[in-house]
């Protein structure tokens, strides 16, 4: 056999005295798809950051062990060096410049240029950008992914699913690419997008590019991986060809206990009073790529309402519109009061809370502690966690106590409530976000993609907590691309199609009915009747 494209030997890493990787070995051959799985905080991103020469690693004392590319030893001290060696990486957080266009982002630091009189004297750096060529390359990369967005549209404001494809387009546009690291690329994609994405990945692998793929969706692993490496608490617990694992075994190895992967979490509730707390009338939301074109919907008191639908049809715009984050029109009444649109502050003051689907802009203050992040919103909108008196001093004791409780409750893997959020793994940052929304004691809770980026073990935990919150009387509107997730906790599920309500189904309605609504067919039309509607 030929030399492996990548060999990582005895890699160890500690951050500020905490060991997060211990003697990890990893080998990837040409054209191989190698999946890396493990719980939130297991060390997957850290391992990949080491490979890519990221500054989080070099600035924190580097790592131990050896990395070999095509058999020769390397030690990248910057992403530039790694890129030069043909390594590409789609990071767990987005790495796109919001003010740049799609083409500028895809070509970032790899711009095509043409010489001009000055560049002949002063060097290549002063060559003029060749926008035509950049445009053409970008177009062909986007076309390969089946994306039809304009290459000169500014990235800011595009839906997260699009952003992910732009990131991938950037990588596949690299000519010298031989190893592509994908850190949870599918987390922000819907099932259909993810499927399309995986096909692209397999196609790439067939051209000889090696893929290192991190995901929490174990069915994806089974579908595409040639080999699997499982990490747990920074140690390699198992590694081998995909055939030798089942999903259940993988999950058990990751988490260290048996994991229930499916089944209904919320008990199907006895008839709830059909009393609308939130009345939505003709709501239109101008969210690029996810436009909502006039929707009427009632949310009943005390229910869990699921919002589903395919990507690009507007399901995520509902919560974003009501919370005032994207320009909207229409009427929204909450407990009989008008919710002023386009005004996030007012929405919060009314007791609505929102966990956004946008992981990058989740609004965490990355340089602040877990504790402060968890209480921030409550402190600002409800004057909670303050000492009595006019000075509004923080009540540190209560904040700490509450933070400790949240850490326990949401299983946030950290060194303590004082830890800075930037130093948490992606999934654990996500948990902090959810903990913060819970802390608001909301009356109506919007949550979008709550388990995105969260490992199999913690996933059901998060869903259970949402159900628990609901049992305490909180109305929940959950938006998710994972139908199974919606069906496991919702009382009713509204399906959005082309910006309009396609229908409402019971969680136990047959799959065909979901399929029909998502395809824009009404149930009456195909003769299924209106059993579950409304």
């Amino acid at each position, binding site marked *: 056999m030929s030399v492996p494209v990548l060999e990582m030997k005895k890699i160890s890493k500690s951050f500020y005295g905490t060991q997060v990787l211990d003697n990890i070995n990893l080998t990837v051959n040409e054209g191989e798809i190698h999946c890396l799985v493990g719980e939130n905080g297991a060390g997957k991103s850290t391992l990949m950051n080491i490979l890519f020469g990221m500054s989080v690693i070099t600035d924190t004392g580097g790592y131990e062990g050896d990395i070999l590319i095509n058999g020769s030893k390397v030690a990248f001290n910057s*992403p530039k060096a790694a890129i030069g060696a043909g390594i590409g990486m789609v990071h767990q957080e987005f790495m796109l*410049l919001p003010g740049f266009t799609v083409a*500028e982002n895809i070509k970032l*630091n790899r711009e095509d*240029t043409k010489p001009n009189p000055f560049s002949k004297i002063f060097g290549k*750096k002063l060559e003029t950008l060749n926008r035509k060529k950049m445009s053409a390359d970008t177009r062909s990369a986007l076309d390969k992914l089946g994306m039809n967005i304009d290459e000169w549209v500014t990235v800011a404001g595009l839906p997260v699913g699009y952003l992910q494809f732009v990131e991938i387009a950037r990588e596949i546009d690299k000519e010298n690419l031989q190893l592509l690291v994908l850190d949870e690329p599918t987390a922000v994609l819907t099932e259909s997008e993810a499927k399309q994405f995986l096909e692209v990945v397999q196609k790439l692998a067939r051209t000889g590019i090696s893929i290192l793929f991190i995901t929490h969706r174990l069915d994806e692993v089974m579908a595409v991986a040639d080999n699997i490496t499982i990490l747990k608490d920074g140690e390699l617990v198992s590694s081998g060809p995909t055939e030798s694992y089942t999903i259940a075994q993988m999950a058990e190895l990751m988490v260290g206990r048996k994991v229930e992967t499916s089944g209904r979490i919320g008990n199907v509730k006895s008839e709830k009073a059909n009393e609308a707390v939130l009345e939505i009338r003709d709501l239109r939301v101008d969210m690029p790529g996810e436009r909502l074109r006039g929707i009427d919907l009632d949310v009943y008191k005390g229910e869990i309402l699921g919002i589903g639908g395919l990507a690009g049809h507007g399901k995520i715009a509902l919560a974003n519109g009501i919370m005032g984050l994207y320009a909207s029109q229409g009427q929204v009444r909450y407990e009989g009061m008008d919710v002023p649109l386009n005004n996030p502050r007012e929405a919060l003051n009314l007791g609505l809370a929102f966990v956004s689907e946008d992981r990058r802009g989740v*609004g965490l203050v990355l340089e602040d502690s877990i504790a402060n992040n968890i209480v921030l919103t409550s402190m600002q909108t409800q004057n909670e966690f303050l000492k009595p008196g006019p000075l509004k001093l923080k009540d540190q004791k209560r904040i700490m106590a509450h933070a400790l409780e949240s850490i326990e409750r949401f299983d946030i893997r950290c060194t303590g409530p004082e830890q800075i959020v930037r130093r948490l793994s992606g999934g654990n940052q996500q948990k902090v976000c959810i903990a913060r929304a819970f802390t608001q004691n909301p009356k109506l809770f919007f949550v979008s993609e709550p388990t995105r980026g969260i490992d199999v073990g913690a996933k059901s935990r998060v869903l259970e907590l949402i159900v628990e919150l609901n049992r305490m009387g909180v109305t929940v509107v959950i938006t998710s691309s994972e139908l199974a997730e919606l069906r496991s906790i919702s009382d009713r599920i509204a399906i959005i199609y082309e910006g309009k309500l396609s229908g409402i189904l019971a969680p136990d309605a047959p799959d065909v009915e979901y399929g029909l609504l998502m395809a824009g067919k009404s149930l009456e039309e195909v003769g299924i009747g209106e059993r579950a509607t409304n």
Partner: protein
Amino acid sequence: MNQIKRIISKNAVPILFAIVCLLGVYYAQMPGQFLFMEIIKRMARNSFLVLSLIIPVVAGMGLNFGIVLGALAGQIALILSTHWEWSGIGGLGLTALLATPMAVLFGVLAGMVLNKAKGREMITGMVMGFFANGVYQFIFLFLVGTVIPFDNAALRISTSPGLRNTVNLSRLRGVLDNIWTVQYGFTKIPIVTFLVIALLAIAIWAFFKTKLGQDFRAVGQDRHIAGVAGIQTDRNRILAIVFSTVLAAWGQIIFLQNIGTLNTYNSHEQVGTFAIAALLIGGASVTKATIGQALMGTFLFHLLFVVSPSAGQAIFGSAQVGEYFRVFVAYGIIAISLALHAWRSKSLAKASMEEDVSA
């Protein structure tokens, strides 16, 4: 209708100042000819300096108060050129050439300091300006003539250490402006100077279409992401400051050849604040500046400068009030935009929260 609203709200600052200027022009009752002459003179003098501020803004380093360092490089070159009795346009070119390596050196040093003070570039730049001024004063007020032997009657009074307060730049006065002028009424329009300014504007515009310009823009948007894409952010930041400093040195030379005398210890003092005020009045901000804003701002700022004493005289019966007003405006606009910037970056965390999660 909406479009008009958008344009107005986007350009609120220049529009506001245009109105103030119009009022000033109205009350000042100045003859149009005189006003035109003053504006032409001042635009020719100052535009280059204001344009030198654009690059660092785009590179994400804010308003470069450090252009004072560039101005100092220009002045040192002028002092030496006076000493060596360089003259004519060739002498001016030589002076600019002489200033360049000094400005590059100052720029590199300043850039390195600013890289150690990321996120606090503006205050650091300001302090650096004061510091450099101190060193400059120490050298030319004290060392020259004592430690550094320097004998030249045009530059020194032999009985006391240090350079003269004012140095007559007679050999270089107007040498650029007067190459080719076009008479319009009383006004001699210095065509070549304006051509130089136009050339710089085009150069800056073209620069942002190059690879290096694109790198600056990327670093300005997000250092971390640019770095992950393999762009050497620190190096680019230093380069941006070097460019700005060199341009400021040349700008100061153009400014002083127009004035004709060098106030050894004062000429550079307000270079930073006035140029920055002009840029801001044109509608630029700490994070965004364009060539159009620089030129528009220079025009409005200096129009205000010209009319405020007479307007003050007409309205309040005292020219002094007008004088105060223009200084007040210069510092006021800087204070406001810095405060706005601080407030914005602070509320960014809040806003992004309001924006997404819950809060």
